[in-house]
């Protein structure tokens, strides 16, 4: 089982944010899509309070948006960007929960299909070096959960992750994305060198 060469990955990962913008008309960013799903319980609560009989999905969306704003204030940036030129494509409507959900589920499915195609089950853990560093028990799961907390907190505070800042924003030379990308690469390299020093690789 061999992985793709670097150039095949560059083609696939480079084409994705551009095609995504052209079709979906939202900046590509996976932490935002997951974040959309995190707001699900709140949005259900809002929908329940306002009664079940809503005329349309648009009405529900507007209501949810208003409720989100009420709760988080202006922390949520306004929907809609400034048009940067004549004849430019406008920003599309905010993604719905079903759309974000479809993306996330299909992404997991993509992993499954790629795995079946490659013809070898990976087992429940993440790779030989991971087990060498953290074992394969409760402690290792604890590391993953804690690391996940850091990822969730960091991408929320930085307002983007490796796709939103690393791919999409950096490719558009956005200052916030370039700085965030440098920061997460430096931190990841630092902690990886520490872990690597412990396991000797």
């Amino acid at each position, binding site marked *: 089982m061999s*992985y*793709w060469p670097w150039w*095949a990955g*560059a083609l*696939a*990962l*480079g084409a994705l*944010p551009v*095609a995504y*913008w052209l079709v979906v008309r939202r*900046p590509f960013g996976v932490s*935002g899509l*997951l*974040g959309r*799903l*995190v707001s699900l319980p709140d949005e259900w609560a809002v929908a329940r309070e306002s009664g079940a009989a809503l005329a349309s999905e648009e009405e529900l969306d507007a209501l949810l948006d208003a409720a989100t704003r009420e709760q*988080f*204030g*202006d922390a949520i940036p306004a929907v809609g960007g400034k048009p*940067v030129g004549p*004849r430019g494509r406008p920003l599309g409507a905010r*993604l719905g929960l079903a759309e974000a959900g*479809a993306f996330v589920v*299909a992404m*997991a*499915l*993509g*992993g499954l299909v790629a795995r079946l195609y490659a013809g070898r089950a990976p087992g*429940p853990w*993440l*790779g*030989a*070096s*991971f087990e060498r560093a953290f074992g394969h028990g409760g402690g290792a799961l604890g*590391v*993953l*959960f804690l*690391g*996940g907390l*850091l*990822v*969730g907190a*960091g*991408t*929320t505070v*930085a*307002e983007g*992750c490796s796709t*939103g*800042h690393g*791919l999409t*924003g950096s490719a*558009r030379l956005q200052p916030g994305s370039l700085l*965030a990308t440098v*920061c*997460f690469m430096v931190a990841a*390299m630092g902690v*990886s060198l520490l872990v*690597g*020093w412990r396991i000797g690789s």
Partner: protein
Amino acid sequence: MNRFVRPAAMAAFGFALGVALSRLGFTDWTEVHAMFTMGLLSGGPSAATLRLLFAFCGAVGLAFVGFAAFARRDAIPSRPIHKGTVAGGLLFGLGWGLTGGCPSIAVVQLGEGRLAAGASVAGVLVGTWLTRRLAARFDWRTSTCD
């Protein structure tokens, strides 16, 4: 177009990202670890240890050309530096280095059957939820791109 095309497109893009991350080896902790250490602790950088870094940098370069060619005038929201840029980036990097999973990678790992990644995904969701609560309380600015 909107009613069915956009959800279908979202599913197609998600599927493509899942396949690409998996076939590139981004879901393999050993490969991601090699990318971040660049092989410095095991005989120096090599084509194998720099493969994912080249893929990532190549992707940014290609997307730069793509956006310049097809979307130069488009109203894509800008991403300015703000108070959380550095702190958030550093926290995210720490987490990615430990778990080997950025938000998308962790989900794809789970899809591949690497069930341990369920702990990473749970961490990401809880971390996002908690941080939003804290942000609302202390009036920090947060959101993520979508």
